[in-house]
């Protein structure tokens, strides 16, 4: 900045006089030279994700026997396979919805500063570190036919026979909630702390009680964030695999789509069929996300005035 060359140019760069530097000329066109450093990463991404995706896509149209679309025809004509879509949606959508809806009031309550906030947040987030297998073990121990819950229910004569809470739909559902909640909670909390706390104060002074403040100020500003949180939670839940096997009923009520794909590819060694199922799985996920983001597009998405 303070360099004084004989010609009097202020910058240290040996720029040709009268010519703006390369960086400036690129910047004029909206190109940030530093971003070019992303190039290797982008290439890596293409190789790692896009190529296998395209490979799988073409594989799904090259079935072991039959015509171009016969894998897809098989999938949609066999109820056992076809129903995996509904079974997986039936698990993923309610679990994601519950995770988001439960996160909102808890995060709302916890948005301010108070003693012990960090401890409480840590406790709520711990399940994310447990992993599905540990969670499944815990669920079996806790909710199984001879688990604590059933013992308690029987001892208090609330039920005559043990309630089945694992190795069926509910086992998988609980597992999805336990592992998915911390994730949704953290996201919602960060979206909430991005909203200027003065907005709620202003609303309060103008006569809005806490319900109205939440309804008219916080919720509308939070809604786009909730849409994103739901999408991510849903994607996590929709690709459920281990818990559907461990605490579910993998051949029946929790025969989810990823199990079907695994079964085709690695037990029947029908790679093209496995690829086709994976493609269908991707399409369903994209469909749900498209619906949610379409709704999000109708919301206010500008600045929320906060620090985040």
């Amino acid at each position, binding site marked *: 900045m303070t360099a004084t060359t004989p010609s009097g140019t202020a910058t240290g760069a040996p720029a040709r006089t009268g010519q703006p530097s390369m960086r400036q000329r690129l910047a004029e066109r909206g190109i940030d030279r530093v971003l070019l450093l992303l190039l290797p990463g982008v290439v890596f991404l293409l190789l790692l994700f896009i190529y296998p995706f395209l490979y799988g896509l073409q594989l799904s149209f090259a079935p072991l026997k039959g015509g171009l679309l016969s894998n897809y025809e098989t999938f949609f004509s066999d109820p056992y396979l076809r129903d995996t879509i509904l079974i997986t949606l039936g698990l993923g959508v309610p679990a994601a919805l519950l995770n988001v809806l439960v996160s909102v009031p808890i995060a709302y309550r916890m948005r301010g500063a108070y003693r012990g906030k960090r401890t409480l947040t840590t406790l709520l987030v711990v399940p994310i570190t447990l992993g599905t297998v540990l969670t499944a073990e815990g669920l079996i121990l806790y909710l199984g036919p001879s688990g604590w819950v059933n013992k308690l229910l029987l001892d208090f004569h609330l039920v005559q026979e043990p309630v089945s809470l694992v190795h069926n739909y509910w086992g998988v559902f609980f597992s999805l909630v336990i592992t998915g909640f911390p994730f949704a909670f953290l996201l919602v909390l960060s979206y909430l702390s991005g909203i200027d706390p003065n907005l709620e104060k202003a609303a309060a002074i103008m006569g809005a009680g806490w319900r109205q403040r939440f309804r008219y100020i916080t919720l509308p*500003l939070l809604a786009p964030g909730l849409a994103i949180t739901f999408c991510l939670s849903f994607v996590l839940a929709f690709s459920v695999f281990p818990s559907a096997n461990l605490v579910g009923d993998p051949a029946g009520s929790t025969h989810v789509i990823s199990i079907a794909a695994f079964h085709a590819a690695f037990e029947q060694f029908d790679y093209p069929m496995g690829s086709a199922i994976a493609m269908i799985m991707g399409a369903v996920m994209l469909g749900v996300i498209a619906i949610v983001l379409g709704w999000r597009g109708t919301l206010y998405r500008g*600045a929320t005035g906060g620090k985040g």
Partner: protein
Amino acid sequence: MQEQRFSELRLDSVSRSFGEQAALRELSLTVQAGEFIALLGPSGCGKTTALNCIAGLLPLTGGSIWLDGRRVDDVPPEQRGFGMVFQNYALFPHMTVRDNVAFGLRMRKVSGAEIRRRVDEVMQLVRLEEHAKKLPPQLSGGQQQRVAIARAIVYEPPLVLMDEPLSNLDAQLRLTMRTEIRRLHQALHLTTIYVTHDQEEALSMADRLVVLREGVVQQVGTPEVLYANPTNRYVAGFMGYRNILEFDVAEASDGHAVLQGKGVQLTGRTFEPVEGRAVAALRPDDIAVGDQGSNLIEVTAEVVEYHGRELLVDARLPGGEQLFFRTEQRVAPGDRVTLTVPEERVLIYPADAPRAPVEVVA
């Protein structure tokens, strides 16, 4: 719903501490309906804390707040019915200007037609009609400011609180809005408590000023009283007494003292007994060039700033101390000048500024 009118708001030893830190100590103040009160002080003096306590955004740690006979310090903000303009405006970014302004009325369950009428009226008052359908981020700073004011007065609150509402505006706009706020205050018979760190703003707008320092009230009074008779050197400094010079006390009698040192002898007024060391507070405008009379000061001009009709001169006493004065005469850097100050314009305070508030009858 018409807001409940009141005849006085009384703060009784209102205190607020954050842990060990006392942000506001025993603020007692009675505000008459219709008054415009300015809380004045530098950042960290407790003025915003005081405002938040009155608004109900901050619970008190001591004292009480009364609206006539009704105690309100335990009433939640939404039930106090006050209006407030925030420093960053805090406009709802997802609502149109119109909806922002209508919010307070909606919360009061006012009928649709009545809301339309009153919002139209206020929008006209703050000259925002053509921006009604915009979102706040699309407005300029001055316009957002006016939305914030409109939003706070549309439901005719008995008390309007303003937290440095002009600090984010440029100098030109600040002057315009100053007049605007004062105009609204008079036209709508509002009672306003206005927080600012700008003494000029406070002097020009308020009926009474409350000067705060480190959470303690220093002086309460009309602009005239504070301007002419600041009660301690701190208030004096805030009221534009830019020269605060320390001397030995040569002679002190009731209400008067003579100070000596630095080759200067100054006679001035005192507000409390002084002895030993004392400071003299002088406003640059009260100092004149000329060697008639008493209270003569010899200085050498060092920096001369051109201020249009007059010059602001940064001069040095023989001892090297800085002295600012204003003059319409031509003065050049390096000139030796003899100055004179009327005795009643020299304010003398004890050298150690008192922390405790001094009782002054306005």
